């Protein structure tokens, strides 16, 4: 995309952000409110020699992008909560095979078919724990259309750097809302792209990690004779169904993320330095919270917002460092609330919940934190 200003929805920004970040392969299945991402990719990818395919379902979509990822493509799919429920099977495969992929979830009202066109934030635990097994995953969540564009670069870079699926959350509010987006010049964007590590010769143990706990990734078609499996495997990639191999592999899959959590964490600390009340929020909902914080500040109240951009791995140090009353404003019956409690260390934590369909009004939030 030419550098300049555009008026885009979150869905379009997500697609354009992905393309800017080097994504050239997309497989997906239509679902509200993410379908416009697929439509944008169908239009744009072939223009630049990329590949778009509409698959028979979400299960096939994620399988296809994992296959494409092994050829070296930066590959993405997009869906909403019901689609993530289906994709979770192969999220586990991507974890186990260490295939970099980006999966967008435009969250809608939930559970089940819920509120297809309206915002929800019920998939935060699903994003983290949705597939079976003990694993770490990266989950990012922007809150503006500009950020939806920009943060895609981090999503792809992190996926490639750590060889892990990155779940990119947006929500129905962001997906369909239009805002002005600045697209920087191509060279500037290009400079930000981090390519995955590839082995410089055919390795005898392709799943042997470097010091960063991430093994360089051999690509299909280059004589590596890769073998990758969802079974527990040794560093050769071969199935090894023993407790010892399990301990070694699964521990590393978790630790390769935990080891780098400080690089992965992105948190906006908004007026929190002196705050005695901190509202934790993210995504579409945080727009109302910012408003509430601003009103409270106008009235001399020391209120701030911690906006989690990285939801997982949970940026716990940003909770631990404050002494304040915490409020967690989220569109569900309490998810990240429990995580904040885990690290609040004696500070009060209160949930400001709404079941979705709309974000809180600033006044609702102000009321919950004790009025202005």
């Amino acid at each position, binding site marked *: 995309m030419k550098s300049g200003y555009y008026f885009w929805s979150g869905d379009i920004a997500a697609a354009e952000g992905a393309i800017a970040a080097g994504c050239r392969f997309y497989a997906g299945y239509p679902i509200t409110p993410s379908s416009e991402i697929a439509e944008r990719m169908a239009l744009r990818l072939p223009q630049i020699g990329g*590949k778009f395919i509409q698959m028979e379902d979400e*299960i096939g979509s994620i*399988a296809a992008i994992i*296959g494409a990822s*092994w050829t070296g493509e930066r590959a993405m799919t997009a869906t909403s909560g019901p689609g993530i429920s289906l994709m979770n099977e192969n999220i586990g495969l991507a974890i186990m095979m260490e295939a970099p992929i980006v999966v967008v979830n435009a969250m809608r009202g939930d559970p089940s078919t819920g509120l297809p066109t309206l915002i929800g934030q019920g998939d935060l635990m699903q994003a983290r724990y949705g597939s079976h097994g003990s694993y770490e995953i990266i989950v990012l969540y922007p809150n503006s259309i500009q950020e939806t564009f920009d943060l895609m670069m981090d999503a792809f870079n992190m996926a490639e750097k750590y060889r892990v699926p990155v779940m990119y959350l947006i929500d129905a509010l962001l997906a369909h809302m239009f805002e002005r987006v600045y697209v920087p010049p191509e060279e500037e964007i290009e400079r930000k792209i981090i390519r995955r590590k590839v082995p410089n010769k055919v390795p005898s143990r392709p799943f042997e990690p470097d010091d960063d706990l991430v093994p360089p990734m051999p690509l299909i*078609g280059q004589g590596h004779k890769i*073998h990758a499996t969802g*079974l527990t495997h040794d560093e050769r990639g071969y*199935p090894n169904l023993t407790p010892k191999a399990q301990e070694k592999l699964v521990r590393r899959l978790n630790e390769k993320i935990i080891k780098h959590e400080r690089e992965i964490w992105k948190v906006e600390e908004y007026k929190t330095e002196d705050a005695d009340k901190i509202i934790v929020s993210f995504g579409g909902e945080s727009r109302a919270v910012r408003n509430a914080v601003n009103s409270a500040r106008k009235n001399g109240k020391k209120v701030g917002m911690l906006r989690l951009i990285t939801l997982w791995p949970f940026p716990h140090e940003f909770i631990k460092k404050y002494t304040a009353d915490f409020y967690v404003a989220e569109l569900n019956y309490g998810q990240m609330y429990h995580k904040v409690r885990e690290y609040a260390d004696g500070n009060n934590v209160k949930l400001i919940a709404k079941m979705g369909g709309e974000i809180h009004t600033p006044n609702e939030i102000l009321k919950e934190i004790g009025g202005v």
Partner: protein
Amino acid sequence: MSLMEDLRYGVEDLLRTERLPHVWCPGCGIGITLNAFLRAVLRRKIDPNKLVVVSGIGCTGRAAGYVNVDSFHTTHGRAIPFAIGIKFARPELTVVVFSGDGDLFAIGGNHFVNAARRNHSILVIAVNNFTYGMTGGQHGPTTPTGAYTTTTPYGNPDRPFNIPHLAISLGAPYVARWTTYHVNQLQNSIYKALGMKGFRLIEVISQCPTVYGRRNSMRTPLSMMEYFEKNSIVKNDASFEEMELKYNEKIVVGEFRVAKDIPTYEERYDEVIRRAKNAD
């Protein structure tokens, strides 16, 4: 060395021999099918570095673990979409799905149907042993009506897929069925299919003496092989009814469809790219 000797040693190179003996039971037909496949690859002179084998889950799913080429052992039923991702991203590669009947037609049925319809250029070798072997011999989407399995103790009330007919109805350009008794025909069929494009399906009726044969009075590997030997009829123009598999009855084998020059998905997408670039 003679051609046959060459092939024999070539097969060794295409196997991860350090992993042999493989996991399959004595007399399991999957090994015979794999052998035929590797020989066909050698005869076709496919660069092993440009060959990708993708399997799903189950006994046949383990095949990917033994071939010494880029190989992927994916999740249950998902070998085809995984393979499509590879093929679509890198059309110059030869992509083969080697998997079992339960994997491809029950849990993976939706992917099979749609991939065949779109005519992705992949070869699917479907080993049909009438059962779920790895999990202990439950009935599957290909178990003949009346057959005994661990989940059909009174005989199977279910009706099996007519796999070649299904593939033909979806427009697959190459559709064949053999049994593991037909070692030469099977190899030639794979050889031929490897030289074609589009969605190619070869169903291989294979013996699972351990959990299927045992419950259906074919306890030994040889007795299952004898059943194939005595009951197979080659008929390339078989009708729908003839292609149906009935419990302990005739097995009609052959090349049921050979159609050239049907554009593949990947070719049609090249046209999409051409149009998109011109539209700017």
